[in-house]
């Protein structure tokens, strides 16, 4: 888009299509996308099974799901709710680490 046109519109247009369109909905908290997330039964055939929902596995699953893959992640750890279990504090987050010390 031409610079003068963008300046005239003063932010009324969104950014060019990039990864920011996948960012969380600013008007919602909780688990956005949970209701549209695919759930498979044990007998379903999928394209990829990822072991471990860590920093690598989670991103890989998300990127491939965007491209239409049928993806399942297997995770041994507990489910942590992003609003109730995650805190913006380092010492308060130590319990999230997988350190086998209880």
């Amino acid at each position: 888009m031409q610079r003068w046109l963008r300046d005239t519109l003063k932010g009324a247009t969104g950014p060019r299509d990039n990864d920011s369109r996948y960012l969380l909905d600013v008007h919602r908290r909780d688990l956005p996308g949970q209701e549209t997330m695919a759930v498979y039964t044990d007998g379903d055939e999928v394209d990829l099974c990822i072991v471990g929902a860590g920093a690598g596995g989670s991103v890989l699953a998300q990127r491939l799901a965007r491209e239409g893959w049928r993806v399942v992640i297997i995770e041994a750890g507990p489910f942590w709710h992003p609003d109730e279990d995650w805190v913006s504090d380092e010492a308060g987050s130590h319990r999230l680490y997988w350190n086998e010390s209880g």
Partner: protein
Amino acid sequence: LTVAVSPSGRDLTRPDHLPHLRSDGEPPDPLWLPRQRAGATPQMIGRYPDYDVLANEANWDAATRAVVRARLGDPPPMRFFTASEQPTLRALCDVATGQDVEPRVPVAEMVDEKLAAGRLDGFRYADMPKDPDTWRLMLRGLDESAARSGAESFAACNTEQQEAIFAAFAKASLHGGVWDELNVSRAFSVCMRAILASFYSHPWAWNEIGYGGPAYPQGYMRMGPTSVLEPHERPGATSEDPVREESGS
């Protein structure tokens, strides 16, 4: 500054705070710092006398607020360390964090709580006992070192003696008794990891160093286009885009 000499008799006239630039190589007495006016800090002194991190707590999410608030009340009695170990632990925490008068961050209680609850770090050195055992050995070693310098216990030493033993601990130059069974350098690392993590998780310590505290959801509410501002944000002085587009795009 109206006070030139601290109660302990140290010179307060040199507010230069970098020990290596001082002729004696010693840090200045912290009493040259101003009294805290907003909120609380350890010993009520700090470099940001009008800053209180808790003034911003309305902008934190409920889970974070609960975690931080829980650190502020009176700590429960110790459960892990025995009655005979507690004075040594308190003296160690005081000398390590430079806390000599109230109000204190209850570092000893915070370390005790962590060990009593078994919330270990999930790793340890191959040549070291488990952290709880290291802590008990370490406290015994400090008392032994104090006894060798003529005092009844580490807690009974005067501040200069405690600082001397602590400095030797930091340099891993303590010997004899417990210290010959323990890798002293790693024991110091185990000790300071718990003490510093506890001290700097307390909002009073945040006030002292001017740490901004938790940042959620503020800062993450309006992600996406930069034209959308959060409630606490103000438009920039200019509308100039710092990321220039290539000509012809």
